[in-house]
């Protein structure tokens, strides 16, 4: 057992923390360059996710809902469920591929029905909500009424302009839709900007999460010398990068460098 302050954790948890920290740093090593340590960590993650998925599928679904009733409770009819399951695998047989089409067709039909219901329930209320009053409603007055109407006017202008942009039955160079479609394109740009900003926040949050793990969960349980060595290595890597003479790159290598994951 290891302890710091009032927190006591077991050797098993210490190993987990070290594994988490090493894998985190190994994955981040890709940011410098593609390398075998990153590849190893990537394969470990994929293998773990696959193994864990199989385990959870068996322990939380197949065993309690299918195997136990069939084998231990005498509900033999659960064995029939194997038949439609196996029908999917005929997709690999050239002669008997029609068998897989039966079950695939049934599945597609089922999900199409669900999708239709989902679409109607999700988007029709949105269409209803887009009908907004452009005059103060009874009971509204003063600055509140003005701001409500102003918001609604902006909403309707943006809605019409963006719908105009996606109206392709008329050439966008025609006078009737030219300006509306152009305005719609600008509004779409604003929306994409908002999405980009939100995506940056999401990606930064993931990075912050790993840094916080290293600082809050991992750091209290490692000796000080580890951090001195780690900081020394980072400084050495930065110095090497800055001072190492770089060979001239060929044009195709430069292109590959540009296309590297960012």
């Amino acid at each position: 057992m290891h302890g710091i302050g009032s927190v006591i954790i077991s050797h098993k948890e210490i190993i987990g923390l070290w594994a988490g920290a090493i894998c985190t740093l190994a994955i981040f090593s890709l940011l410098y360059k593609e390398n075998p340590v990153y590849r190893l960590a990537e394969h470990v993650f994929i293998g773990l996710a696959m193994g864990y998925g199989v385990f959870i599928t068996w322990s939380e679904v197949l065993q309690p809902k299918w195997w136990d009733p069939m084998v231990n409770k005498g509900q033999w009819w659960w064995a029939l469920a194997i038949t439609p399951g196996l029908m999917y695998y005929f997709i690999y047989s050239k002669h008997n591929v029609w068998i897989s089409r039966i079950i695939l067709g049934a599945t597609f039909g089922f999900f199409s029905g669900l999708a239709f219901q989902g679409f109607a329930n999700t988007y029709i209320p949105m269409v209803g909500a887009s009908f907004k009053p452009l005059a103060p409603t009874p009971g509204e007055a003063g600055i509140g009424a003005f701001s409500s109407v102003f918001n609604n006017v902006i909403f309707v202008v943006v809605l019409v302009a963006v719908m105009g942009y996606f109206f392709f039955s008329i050439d966008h160079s025609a006078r009737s839709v030219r300006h509306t479609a152009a305005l719609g394109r600008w509004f779409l740009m604003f929306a994409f900007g908002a999405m980009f900003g939100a995506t940056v926040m999401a990606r930064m949050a993931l990075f912050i999460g790993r840094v916080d793990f290293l600082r809050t969960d991992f750091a209290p349980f490692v000796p000080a010398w580890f951090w001195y060595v780690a900081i020394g290595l980072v400084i050495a890597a930065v110095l090497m990068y800055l001072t190492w003479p770089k060979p001239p790159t060929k044009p195709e290598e430069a292109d590959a460098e540009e296309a590297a994951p960012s």
Partner: protein
Amino acid sequence: MGFLTYLDRIDRRIMYLLLAVVVIVPLIFPIIRQKTEITPEVMKAYEAVEKLPTKDAPRKDYKIAVISVFFGPGTMAENRPQMEALVRHFFRRGVPFGILPFDQAGTTLAYNKVDQIAKEMNKEYGKDWIAFSWQPIFDQTLQAMATNVPRTLGRDKRYNAPLTDTKRFPIMEGIKTAGDFSMVVEVTPSGTVPAWISYIGQTKKVPIVYCPTGVMVPEGYNFLDAHQIVGMLPGLMGAARYEAALGEKGFATRAAGSLSTSHVLIIVLIILGNIGYFMSLRQRSSS
């Protein structure tokens, strides 16, 4: 001119290093003290939870909230603080709730976190909260819950016991259909909230609080505007704002400073990159 044109071909590793510095420094030294404003969509979510019936409600009003866990390790940093903030609010108010996992890895991640909070706040499993077993299929599970919750969800996660065992799980007493849910909280990195809206929110009139990752936030405002959801915690900042509403300082609040500095750096880099690009264009056209 040389420096400005260099900005166009700056090594991405230098940018990563700068990013690491602006993220790590505010986390270790919380020098940035910004006021966390509680935005309307977060306040609406908070107020909706404040109105939920507690476990001591009369039998006819008794309902449970459900936290749908769709996240895994990939988006844990964003989604888990959202879930944690709401769980703390539920426990504080005495709102009974169950966690319903749809992600294999998220099953354990969510269970461990709620269990840890429950121990901190002296809450009892089976009475104040419950963890349902992992559900492999999403849409059909929601549809089936509309008519029978205990049969659809089957067993709990801790004891692998049937949910119909109300002696062991008094929290499930009287819970028959999805109409007995007081609220659904959808914590997700994917576009899964329309299914909740469609099968449970619209048909059973159950209020929904949406907790998306940052990438999904812009879409969420459509649902909010159409009153299909009652509130939203947009990404990690949403969790930080909810923590502010609760008067607590968790991971999301700690991370808010780093989020701000990283956004400032990205904006600066975009501006510098564009300046460098136009300078390079001008240099090429003049030579």
